[in-house]
């Protein structure tokens, strides 16, 4: 389980401010959803938390370590404790499902090939994809890819799991199973989760707390019930849409 603190994070590209002093706190084992319209800065914030983008200002601490001033080599050490489930899964298309899921442990030689094969089998069973080890990403549907992406993110046993638009592009039934999987993953493994999404039904189903981001700034944070009762017109417009 990990703890995450985002303090005063700003990010600019050329003269355009994409994130404007974002503050967030995610407690151990909590599912925090960051919701907002397309282009509001959700994915940029997630990539900053993952260390894929360096913020212009502010600090991001994962288990007490500020990752903003870290070099790429130092980040590699921290990223072993962070998993990211990409919006379009980002599976390596030349590798099989088995090779994708077992990629991290095999590259880092933290387990024997036999132990990795066993781990892959168990992770695929956990995400409801048993027996797909030999398939290639091109043979999988959108929902299946996201499940394999989640299994791959779990292979390094992260304490912090980041989800980028986990239900976008999926039909409501499959989106529901992905929601269940996010909650089950937290319940079973105790991972701290940050879910970035604009899917309101999904957010209110899975989140312990919700943060609303608008135009690069967090404008309200609270439980799903609190956000439903919000008096902020921007939150209301989004929640009631």
């Amino acid at each position, binding site marked *: 389980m990990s703890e995450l603190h985002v303090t005063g994070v700003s990010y600019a590209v050329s003269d355009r401010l994409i994130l404007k002093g974002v503050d967030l706190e995610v407690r151990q084992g909590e599912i925090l959803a960051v919701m907002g319209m397309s282009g509001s800065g959700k994915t940029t914030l997630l990539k900053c938390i993952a260390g894929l983008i360096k913020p212009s200002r502010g600090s991001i601490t994962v288990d007490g370590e500020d990752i903003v001033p870290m070099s790429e080599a130092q980040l590699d050490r921290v990223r072993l404790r962070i998993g*990211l489930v990409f919006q379009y899964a980002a599976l390596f298309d030349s590798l099989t499902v088995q090779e994708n899921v077992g990629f991290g442990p095999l590259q880092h030689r933290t387990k024997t090939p036999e132990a990795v094969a066993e781990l892959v089998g168990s992770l695929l069973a956990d995400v409801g994809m048993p027996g797909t080890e030999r398939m290639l990403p091109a043979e999988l549907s959108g929902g299946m890819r996201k499940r394999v992406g989640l299994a791959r993110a779990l292979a390094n046993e992260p304490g912090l799991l980041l989800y980028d638009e986990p239900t976008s592009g999926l039909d409501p039934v499959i989106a529901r199973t992905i929601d269940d999987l996010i909650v089950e993953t937290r319940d079973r493994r105790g991972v701290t989760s940050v879910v970035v999404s604009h899917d309101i039904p999904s957010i209110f189903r899975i989140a312990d707390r919700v943060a609303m981001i608008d135009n690069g700034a967090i404008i309200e944070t609270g439980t799903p019930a609190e956000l439903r009762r919000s008096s902020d017109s921007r939150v209301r417009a989004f929640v009631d849409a």
Partner: protein
Amino acid sequence: MVAATFVGETSILAGQAAWLAVRGKFSLRETIRQMAAMGVDSIPIIMLTCAATGSVLAFYVADVLVRFGGSGFVGGMIALSFLLELGPVLAGVMVAARSGAAVAAEIGSMVVTEQIDALRMMSVPPVRYLVTPRVLACILMMPICGLFADMAGIFGGLVMASTHGVTQSAFMESIRTMATHADLMKGLAKTLWFGLTIAVVACHQGLNTQRGATGVGAATTRSVVLCVVFIFVSDFFLAQALSGASASMR
């Protein structure tokens, strides 16, 4: 400014790849796979183009030399042309067009589909996983490609020269008289540099891909154009440097 940035970035990339290679931090399996994809699979097309070029060269050279009583020079001239210049350069151009383009497109697609970010998230540096094996594979395979280019070009020249009244024995004797092992080695030395240039430029263009599918196409085109330009420009300087080096050894 753009040129300085490009030179700086490619030099850093080459340095990082070299440092990882020296420390043995790369996948041998991936390197062998790339040696097959970038080198072995390029050999047929290299041989075809070089055989055709050798034939055309012999067509013009043999015609003139035989007319002026110089048929004893045909084989040597064609061999020297290929060993010193045409073999390495044509092999480089073909590898840049075929394998360099493939590398830029593959890595570019990985960038736009976030597979590079996925590598970073799993704490696997893209330079270690993607660049080092490709750079090593290209450097190791280019001399072999150059050797096949030389053989195919000379063979093409031999076949064409025989239709102009130059016998096979006269052609081979001319090669033995005029060309030396040093000429072969000078040409192969060039291919090492071409291999490094092709792999580093292609990987750099791929890693700097932006803006989706259009960006992948643009990166691929830039990679081929830059590699071909660098091959021709660096060939000029390498030719001067290598002949200067051999002259000082004499």
